[in-house]
């Protein structure tokens, strides 16, 4: 087993609102090994982006990390001063956003932005930073890096902008890349290309990746392990094969049956009835029980134990991964 790079344990992030305290993350555990690609899969409001922001300590008031630890390379990120955290962001952990405009400033040329950001995060001079910028632009398969460097963001297409933001982010030489749906806004043929390029670079540089998405297709192609998150809790964790071949938690099973597959004609899609719970007033017991086809009386009152985020496990009172895996 390789070294653990990230170890999140019992992380609780809350937001104060007019209707009370919202527990966006209700005690999650998650580990990411060095060189491993973990997919965090969930629907909107499930807490997947809050997880990313918690790791980067970007939770602003009225939100706060109410408990738990985020160990990164042996150091707890929770409670670091903002100055210390600034050094971690960019140098050790970087983030790629869904909308590349979030990481590109429209009024500066790509050269200005890449050279400054890479120079700052690597503590190197402009000339060396520009060499690295060119190197990474070539790595993400940009045909003419010199021309790209002289362009402004609006002169590039969406796919090219996303490739530039990937090149810039990876150019910082981080250990962990948090990718928040970086290909969702792209056309499918462009998405395919960007995914392939990203996968190549990540493999070559042996980077760890936390890939946040609702797209199970992308996860199946890209990730080693998957954490399925529902209503602020990780309901199932395992390898891609565990999750797709032996899904155990009823939410995971139903979710897999609701997604159409372009490669085969299907019977009618299954429907998960109901909606995600209001996080200001989540249901007692297991948060999925009101929508669960297998719910029993105890599910309404007893909360299942959290998964430890290290091996195939489901947070469910009724189903057990061990019996499921043996079958």
């Amino acid at each position: 087993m390789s070294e653990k790079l990230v170890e999140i344990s019992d992380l609780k992030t809350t937001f104060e609102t007019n209707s009370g305290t919202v527990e966006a993350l209700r005690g999650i555990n998650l580990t990411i090994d060095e060189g491993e690609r973990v997919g965090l899969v969930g629907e909107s409001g499930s807490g997947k982006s809050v997880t990313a922001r918690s790791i980067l300590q970007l939770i602003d008031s009225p939100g706060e990390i109410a408990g738990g630890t985020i160990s990164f390379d042996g150091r707890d990120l929770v409670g670091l001063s903002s100055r210390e955290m600034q050094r971690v962001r960019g140098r050790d952990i970087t983030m790629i956003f869904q909308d590349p405009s979030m990481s590109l400033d429209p009024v500066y040329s790509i050269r200005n932005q890449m050279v400054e950001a890479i120079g700052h995060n690597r503590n190197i001079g402009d000339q060396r930073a520009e060499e690295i910028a060119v190197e990474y632009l070539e790595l993400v398969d940009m045909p003419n890096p010199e021309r790209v460097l002289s362009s402004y963001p609006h002169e590039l297409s969406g796919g090219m902008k996303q490739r530039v933001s990937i090149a810039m982010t990876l150019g910082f030489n981080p250990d962990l890349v948090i990718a928040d749906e970086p290909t969702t806004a792209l056309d499918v043929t462009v998405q395919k290309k960007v995914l392939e390029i990203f996968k190549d670079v990540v493999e070559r540089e042996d980077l760890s990746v936390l890939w946040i998405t609702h797209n199970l297709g992308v996860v199946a192609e890209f990730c080693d392990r998957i954490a399925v998150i529902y209503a602020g809790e990780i309901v199932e964790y395992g390898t891609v094969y565990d999750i797709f071949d032996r899904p155990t938690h009823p939410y995971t099973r139903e979710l897999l049956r609701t997604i159409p597959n372009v490669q085969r004609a299907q019977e009618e899609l299954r429907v998960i009835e109901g909606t995600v719970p209001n996080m200001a007033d989540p249901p007692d017991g297991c948060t999925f029980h009101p929508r669960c086809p297998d719910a029993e009386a105890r599910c309404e009152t007893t909360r299942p134990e959290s998964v430890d985020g290290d091996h195939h496990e489901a947070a469910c009172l009724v189903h057990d991964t061990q019996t499921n895996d043996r079958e």
Partner: protein
Amino acid sequence: MTESNTKAGAESGPPILAVRDLKKHYPIKEGILRRQTGTVKAVDGVDLDVHRGDIHAIVGESGCGKSTLLETLLGLEEPTAGTVKYEGTDLDSLTAREQRALKSEVQIVFQNPESSLDPRDTVGQIISEPLHLHTDATNRQVDARVVSLLDDVGLGPEYYGRYPHELSGGQQQRVAIARAISLNPSLILLDEPTSALDVSVQSQILKLLREIKTEYDLTYVMVTHDLSVVRHFATDVSVMYLGNVIESASVTDLFDHPKHPYTQALISAVPVPDPHYDSEADITLPGSVPEPDDPPEGCRFHPRCPVAVDACSEEFPEFEEHEGNRVRCIRVEEAEKLGAPGSEDAADLKSPSTTRPAGEDR
């Protein structure tokens, strides 16, 4: 319910919607004198036949002209050339009054319910508005109809007085669907109806659209970029690239035996939710879609095409029939050797050397 994915003898009779050589061009004007310096050919000669009971999906990537096509069908954009016939009647030949009557026959559901529903109106007001405008029903009759429409889309009467912001995205889309069916239309245009929704909500809305279609005897024209949804939901598919339809077929023929190289690339680009799926054989296209103000000569797709030859840059081929698919391509046989994604025999046909377009490995 697989039979809903096949056609129930719909071929007979005239098409409910017949589009011939439809064009929508936009002038590009520059300088102080606003001289026209170019033309964006957003839709550049589209033919489309939609039969009663079809779910006809128009698919393509951004900039292919699918949204402009929908706006033109809806009469929001005046076509530059070509005709749109609804049940055999040319829209241009109608008087304003007749056009208005026809408009209650054709309704639309947009991608983003949040922006298509007036935030200041209650759900009841939103759904009853077309009833007040287009029928002589009394207030009481309208209210009763709204409650029954709410029931049809799976919402209780308690939603009558609520405002859009109090609803989830899925519930908002249900309200938009209720409004669309309020006048008993024959044809509903669906503009990416589930793209803004979560996957579990998406399947709820697709199921609802199917139920409503049966109950109200509807025909759908759906514009989308989501091929997984199309395969599951549609009966017929037209694939657009740079303002033109380049392949058109039944959903089974299109996905099991895609003929056009672009269709093949498009299908194989969709991520497959199955870790055992071997994506090595997929086709990755070089470059991106060219700007529609400067489309390539000849076949619009040839600069990115893995099987293009010189002749492809000279002339844009007309439609030809290939086993049930109508395709604008002169290289269909060569394209088939790429290994049609999804077809059972694809694996035997392809070797790694034929699946990658030359020049892709820059």
